[in-house]
């Protein structure tokens, strides 16, 4: 096949569409790309949203009175232990010759 025939064959195989087709197709592609990206950005926001929900729940519960028998209650033995430690601090701070 000579060059001229090849050129004609290539021309026959070319695709021709109306001028209005291309902007419409481009718009459809860009719209689809935008939709593709939308959910991904939403996923990026998901951890922040979850954190906000947890914060709201914690704040909604408000300050609660502690039960005197609960783990927050300070036992007398513990206070005595602290007193002993305080005494130790005082003792350590006194020079040896004064003892």
């Amino acid at each position, binding site marked *: 096949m000579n060059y001229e025939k090849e050129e004609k064959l290539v021309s026959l195989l*070319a695709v021709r569409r109306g001028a209005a087709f291309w902007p419409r197709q481009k718009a459809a*592609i860009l719209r689809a790309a935008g939709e593709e990206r939308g959910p991904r950005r939403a996923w990026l926001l998901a951890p922040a949203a979850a954190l906000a929900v947890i914060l709201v729940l914690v704040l909604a519960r408000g300050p609660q009175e502690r039960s005197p028998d609960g783990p927050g209650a300070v036992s007398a033995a513990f206070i005595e232990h602290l007193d002993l430690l305080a005494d130790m601090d005082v003792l350590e701070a006194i020079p040896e010759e004064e003892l």
Partner: protein
Amino acid sequence: METEKKAGPQGPGAEDADSAFALLVEEQQRLVYAVALRLCGNTAAAEDITQETFIAAWRHLKDFRGESSLKTWLLRIAANKARSYWRWRRLRAWVGLADRGEDGEGTALEDLLPDDPAGRPEQAALAAELERRVQAAINALPPRQREVAVLRSQGVSMAEIGAALGMAEGTVKAHWFEARRKLGASLGEYL
């Protein structure tokens, strides 16, 4: 290619990714659509493949290593999607789900015409008949020859075809030689 100059081989920066992508679509959509249409012979499928090709490119642009041009990368994606289309068609035919509307040569007449044919019905009919003959001739080619012929007929260079289809340039030339001979025999009256 203008897109490659602006976007660079590593892909566009995040700040102007949208405009770079729009430019890429503007520059390459005709080529991608033409290849998709000639490879599957169905306008609806060609529109889907074109859209999916650009969406896949958009999704994986950050993974693009720049070893080939964006153009050959898009062509490779489109060719792969066209192959998937034929696999899907064969599977549907195998389970007996293929219908007339999905036939590769069953493209609607109005889809094949470039402009409004109102007032020139004879010309429109001739154009549609030519289009059907051309598509039938392409469909009759073996898959590799068809891919090479379709890309070559859209002005893609031998080297670019080789890069897009993963073939040596010599193999591309051999396929084009054989495809050209067969197409010449099928469409001789128009040449």
